[in-house]
């Protein structure tokens, strides 16, 4: 057998064949290859990626059964969005050729993009790291949201669920809050640029208090615009506070990191941004009410001090005259209260009662004719007397005791009680302030009771 083999191998055909030089055959192979694959799309995994000093990069593209050498020239590499690394799945467009000097066939890369989630994730991580280094995510950059926005700028799709949801929530919470939508594509080619443009355009206006930028949920590819640098930069440059609202509970987008506040969904963003109108009105009513009550107490205190003066033996006579200054106060308060919008007062009926009581408490009408000059004289007199009183602090203590007698706590002795919410520690004045099951504290003249609400009755 070995003999037969060696004979065949040693056989020389009669016709002399063409003998290639190495260069010739390599050149022919190259010509055939280049003609067959002018350019080709190839997908695979990068390995042995290395950068030469020249700026060109060399790597091997492989799948589980084969591999090809690839060259990425500097010119092509610089324009690419991501930096390839070993293990990346990529799709590349290249020319198939032969590197004659080594006899290697190879692909010269014209364009390359990351393929699959792994590579997207990589682009994400790279951008995130870069922007973080630049300080774009720093807490110190975050702007605080306005407490009460009157007009909200929204950058999202005009046809998506996101804008519907937000309008719904904002309407429900606050029918005084306006919305200005910048309609933008939120996925696909050009989406990131449109979103960024929207943020910039809304920043040119003077009437926007806060921006919501987002879209409903989707796949990581659908949400990709919110991971683009151009969007991140627009958010970072926004003078108006930005809330990101990309509908995905688990993952963060780059936009989320740059935004002043991140909301998990568009609806949640609307909830976070817009306070309930009811709460605003109640705050205003509460403060106004408190202020009027304090003022009433001040006047009462003042009146008490005057009474104290009047009671002093040495100053019996011009009793009515002394009451004039308090009357002036009462009238002034009245005048001020009249200027208040009715609806600030309406909800707490007792506010108007307070005002009424102040008016009623004014002393005798006949003194109203007293001249301004005399009032001034009296006021001066009162002031002098007051300084005398101050010298006699112990007497003032007596006044304090009498004032104390007016304290609501003394009412408890007559069987009344004060109920406070355990949660808010505020006095409960309406059954609407508590719910069934809430715990309340009831303060009695002697001790207190902790109780649970069985039922609320309006």
């Amino acid at each position, binding site marked *: 057998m070995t003999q037969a083999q060696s004979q065949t191998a040693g056989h020389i055909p009669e016709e002399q064949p063409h003998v290639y030089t190495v260069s010739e055959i390599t050149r022919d192979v190259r010509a055939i290859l280049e003609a067959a694959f002018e350019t080709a799309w190839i997908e695979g995994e990068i390995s042995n990626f290395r950068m030469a000093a020249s700026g060109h990069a060399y790597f091997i593209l492989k799948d589980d059964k084969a591999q090809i050498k690839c060259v990425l020239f500097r010119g092509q590499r610089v324009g690419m969005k991501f930096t390839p690394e070993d293990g990346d799945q990529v799709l590349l467009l290249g020319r198939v050729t032969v590197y004659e000097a080594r006899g290697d066939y190879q692909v010269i890369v014209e364009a390359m993009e990351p393929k699959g989630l792994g590579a997207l994730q990589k682009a994400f991580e790279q951008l995130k790291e870069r922007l973080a280094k630049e300080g774009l995510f720093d807490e110190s950059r975050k702007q605080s949201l306005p407490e009460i926005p009157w007009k909200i700028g929204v950058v999202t799709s005009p046809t998506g669920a996101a804008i519907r949801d937000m*309008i719904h929530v904002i309407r429900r919470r606050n029918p005084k809050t306006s919305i200005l939508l*910048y309609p933008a594509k939120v996925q696909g080619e050009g989406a990131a640029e449109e979103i960024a443009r929207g943020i910039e355009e809304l920043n040119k206006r003077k009437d926007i208090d806060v921006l919501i930028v987002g879209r409903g949920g989707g796949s990581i590819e659908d949400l990709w615009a919110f991971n683009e640098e151009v969007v991140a930069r627009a958010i970072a440059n926004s003078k108006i506070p930005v809330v990101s609202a990309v509908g995905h509970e688990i993952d963060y987008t780059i936009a989320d990191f740059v935004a002043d506040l991140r909301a998990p969904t568009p609806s949640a963003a609307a909830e976070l941004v817009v306070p309930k109108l009811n709460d605003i009105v109640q705050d205003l009513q509460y403060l106004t009410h408190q202020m009027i009550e304090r003022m009433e107490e001040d006047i009462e205190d003042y009146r008490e001090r005057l009474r104290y003066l009047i009671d002093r033996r040495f100053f019996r006579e011009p009793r009515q005259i002394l009451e004039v200054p308090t009357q002036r106060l009462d009238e*002034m308060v009245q005048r001020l209260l009249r200027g208040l919008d009715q609806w600030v007062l309406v909800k707490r009926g007792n506010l108007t009662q307070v005002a009424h009581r102040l008016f009623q408490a004014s002393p005798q009408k006949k003194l109203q004719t007293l001249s301004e000059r005399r009032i001034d004289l009296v006021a001066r007199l009162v002031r002098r007397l007051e300084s005398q009183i101050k010298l006699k602090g112990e007497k003032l203590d007596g006044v304090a005791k009498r004032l104390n007698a007016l304290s609501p706590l003394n009412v408890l002795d007559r069987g009344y009680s004060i109920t406070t919410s355990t949660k808010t520690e505020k006095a409960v004045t309406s059954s609407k302030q508590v719910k069934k099951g809430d715990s309340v504290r009831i303060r009695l003249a002697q001790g207190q009771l902790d109780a649970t609400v069985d039922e609320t009755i309006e």
Partner: protein
Amino acid sequence: MAEIKFEKAMNRLEHIVEELEKGELDIDKSLEIFEEGIKMSRVCSKKLNEAEQKIEKLTKNQKGELVTELFPTGVDEDTDDED
């Protein structure tokens, strides 16, 4: 007088209530800030009264400028969608 911002007015009102609650002011000063407080309260309620919800969108006109127009919301309970 420049328009006082709602938030500023509320904050001022809150501050005035605190001042009055401390009770360290003489009656003249109390009355002075009370008067200011009433003004703040009025500013706020005026703003609340006057604020009207508008739901609009930006669109490009023929010249390519951005203009606002009503955004149709198609919500049933809304009766003033159309201008």
